[in-house]
């Protein structure tokens, strides 16, 4: 039997405001335990919460970026439960009148576009941090009350890879909006997943499990992949699945059932009387809409249209805002209408250099004019592509000019046939086997001979010229 995987994701996002959601305590990460706290976030009796204006603006901005309908009338509710990381014994959240609903996110998965529905984006607050030691749990309330958004997707994701691609696109857009650090390791972006399997073609959803405790996008994908296998095995053995919460164990690479609390969850939501309602009218919305930057999908389409890039190349360049801006300034300054060569350099050698140095493209110590000048040398066949890559590396290390580095390294390519003839003859003498292979019709042998000439000329020979020379020499003979 064939099963279809159905996944929905719930993302919790810390907003990057200076202060907490309902009080003026700082949101700085890594401060001494229980030093960013006050009567409001510690839940002292009589303390009154007041919502952060910046948090509301950021939330509306994000909801608009995902095409959500902003609710004209929105309010906060109390979600009641007891846990030591929750000093008030309720979390301020939103229940029946969330900030926004019915949005979407366009993703590319396996090179195909797909629209994923976003059910709702609502406002809430973070809980404290627990550290478990022998016999006791320690509580740090610094994180308590940091503004969170909960972003709930529709069950539109049909594979762990799609879930991964959804998260990547989501993160990319949030970075463009500059409303969160999106750092899963620091906990500013967290993700839970609901996953169920159903028979191919079935309409009803199967029994779902909720997965928690993943601390990277890859963790989400791995946990989901494990869960697809586990559920498939159970279903094929005709065993009943139970609805449960399972925790991802990254060390063992398995999900483990969480001990269930007795009875269904009963949060007794009710409107928080300490906070007033919010009326978000058209003027507020249009004011925030005007602040929205050009987002990755639009930027990608514009790069394709304006600069003739392929969708594939454009998609790579727009995934980070700063990299996209850096790339566009290079593209603008690059002479001529055909930008392909430059783009190849950006997403090829330059991106590998950045990855190697564990930084982003735009953080490379690079003057774009030097990059353009370097590509010019290659285009005019003054230096080989191989030498140019090493010049690029030196450019980044030393900050010298491409011209100086090429001269210092004596890297000018030898395209002059006469200068190459002697080397070529030696190579032909030394490699009788390859010569006869080539004559027997093995074209690969030519590549090998060219490689030998390149080696003997310390990479300075122009491979195109060498190839042509050897071919003529061997076919004429």
């Amino acid at each position, binding site marked *: 039997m064939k099963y279809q995987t159905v996944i929905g994701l719930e993302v919790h996002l810390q907003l990057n405001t200076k202060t907490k959601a309902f009080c003026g305590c700082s949101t700085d990460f890594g401060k001494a335990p229980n030093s960013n706290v*006050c009567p409001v976030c510690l839940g002292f009796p009589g303390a009154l919460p007041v919502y952060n204006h910046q948090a509301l603006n950021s939330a509306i901005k994000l909801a608009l970026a995902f095409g959500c309908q902003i609710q004209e009338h929105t309010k906060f509710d109390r979600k009641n439960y007891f846990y030591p990381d929750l000093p008030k014994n309720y979390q301020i959240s939103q229940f029946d009148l969330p900030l926004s609903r019915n949005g979407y996110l366009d993703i590319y998965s396996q090179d195909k576009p797909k629209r994923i529905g976003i059910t709702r984006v609502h406002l809430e607050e973070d809980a404290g941090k627990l550290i478990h030691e022998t016999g006791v749990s320690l*509580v740090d*309330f610094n994180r308590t009350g940091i503004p969170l958004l909960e972003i709930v997707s529709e069950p539109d994701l049909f594979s762990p890879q799609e879930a991964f691609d959804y998260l990547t696109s989501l993160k990319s857009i949030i970075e463009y909006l500059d409303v969160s650090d999106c750092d899963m390791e620091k906990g500013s972006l967290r993700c839970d997943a609901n996953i169920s399997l159903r028979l191919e073609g079935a309409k009803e959803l199967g029994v779902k499990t909720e997965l928690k405790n993943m601390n990277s996008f890859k963790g989400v994908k791995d946990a989901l992949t494990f869960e697809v296998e586990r559920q498939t095995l159970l279903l094929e053995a005709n065993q009943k699945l139970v609805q449960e919460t399972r925790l991802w164990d990254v060390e063992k690479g398995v999900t483990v059932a969480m001990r269930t609390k007795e009875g269904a969850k009963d949060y007794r939501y009710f409107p928080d009387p300490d906070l007033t309602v919010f009326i978000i009218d058209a003027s507020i919305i249009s004011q925030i809409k005007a602040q929205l930057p050009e987002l990755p999908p639009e930027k990608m389409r514009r790069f394709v249209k304006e600069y003739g890039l392929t969708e594939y190349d454009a998609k790579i360049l727009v995934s980070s805002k700063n990299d996209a801006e850096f790339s566009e300034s290079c593209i603008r300054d690059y002479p001529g209408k055909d930008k392909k060569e430059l783009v190849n350099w950006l997403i090829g050698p330059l991106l590998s250099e950045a990855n190697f140095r564990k930084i982003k493209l735009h953080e490379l110590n690079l003057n774009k004019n030097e990059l353009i000048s370097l590509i010019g040398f290659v285009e005019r066949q003054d230096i080989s592509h191989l030498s140019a890559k090493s010049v690029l590396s030196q450019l980044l290390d030393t900050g010298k000019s491409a011209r100086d580095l090429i001269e210092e390294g004596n890297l000018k390519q030898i395209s002059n046939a006469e200068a190459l003839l002697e080397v070529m003859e030696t190579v032909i003498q030394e490699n009788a086997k390859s010569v006869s292979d080539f004559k027997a019709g093995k074209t690969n042998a030519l590549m090998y001979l060219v490689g030998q000439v390149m080696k003997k000329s310390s990479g300075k020979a122009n491979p195109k010229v060498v190839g042509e020379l050897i071919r003529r020499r061997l076919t004429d003979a």
Partner: protein
Amino acid sequence: MSIDKETIKHVAHLARIELQPNELDKLSGELDEILGFIDKLKYLNLEQVKPASHILPINNVLREDEPHVSLTSEKALENAPSKQGNFFSVPKIIE
């Protein structure tokens, strides 16, 4: 609507309140009365009344994103029944 003892016990558990048997009886009577009073809404004509989630006719009360001075951790922990270093400490909640 009438409230049975099981419901009272359930609600008491959710609120982490321990009730004596005599309190159970007393409370189920009192809650019955309160709910009976709220039930009066059913007999009123409310067609013209908009649903409200707050008793005050004010909205959009917000604060600017400016930091205030927080408590020191000594002060924050002053009344803690149990602490360890700068942390509040509680009985271990997972094994």
